[in-house]
């Protein structure tokens, strides 16, 4: 079990993605880069209001070639998608309390990018968000949502 937002947590997620036969069967053929933006809020004990965390995930087929924390917001170059949400939303998803698809439809997660690609690879997207939401065992050293 690894702590939320730790490199070990993201390494676990990477292993889960690469170990998923279902994802391997549905993964897009194209290389795709995504930015995950965690916007601090008053409720999260991990990312306080006024702070942000930025991650870059690059998928090449079913392989996660990059899963790194960035020092600043990605400039958008060669970026396929940008997912932005408050920290509490990401944490609630990781805790299995919030469905990421519904969060995207409501606009709690803002999605920017090629929607046609998203539609063409919807099954892969669903598998990815399910892996993020339900299959990573997470340690919550400063408390678990709901806060």
């Amino acid at each position, binding site marked *: 079990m690894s702590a939320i937002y730790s490199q070990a947590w993201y390494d676990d997620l990477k292993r889960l993605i690469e170990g998923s036969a279902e994802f391997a069967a549905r993964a897009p053929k194209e290389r795709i880069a995504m930015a995950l933006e965690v916007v601090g809020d008053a409720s999260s004990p991990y990312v306080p209001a006024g702070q942000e965390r930025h991650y870059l995930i690059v998928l090449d087929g079913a392989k996660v070639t990059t899963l790194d924390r960035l020092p600043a917001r990605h400039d958008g170059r060669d970026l396929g998608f940008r997912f932005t949400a408050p920290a509490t939303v990401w944490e609630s998803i990781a805790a299995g309390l919030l469905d990421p698809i519904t*969060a995207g*439809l409501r*606009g709690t997660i*803002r999605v920017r990018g090629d929607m046609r690609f998203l*539609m063409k690879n919807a099954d892969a997207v669903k598998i990815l968000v399910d892996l993020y939401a339900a299959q990573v065992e997470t340690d919550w050293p400063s408390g678990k949502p709901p806060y």
Partner: protein
Amino acid sequence: MAADLTRASCAVVLRDEATASGLADMLHQFLAQTVASSPGKARLACRLRGALLFRAAEDELLTVSIAFSGAGIEVGDAPGPDPSLPMLTADFLTTAHLTTGEERPLGLLVRRRMRVRFRLGQALFLWRVLGLLRIAPEGAPARARWRWALAVGLLALAALAVLAVALVALTTDNR
């Protein structure tokens, strides 16, 4: 405030961008990218007149209106169902499968994965909107044109045959 994502003649606008739901925002991006991706889609979008509602099956409080004015498309959150407008209800995966052609509308309706409410007079409009939303697979436009040409050719031949039979019958009767 409204956002216009296209420079094409058929502009796609998101109403009340700052407060728009994710569904409205993503439909706006999808339509703008679709119209920008192909002159054929832009022409089709500009020929459409009317409005429809799209409701998320995951959260039925989320209803988005898509209005085609001929000059452009306006996407925005709707307060809820409007009996005068056709309405399509589907979840994210179903919508994706519909747009990619992985599933056919009739099959989705039969399996109750999609619900559609419309009046008979709105059927053609709804069908054309579904055609606009459809993402053509690689190389599909050429195949589609050939299919259309073949269908039109066969129809023309059938019409000629009917005309010929009618003329023959008329001539025989006159004798």
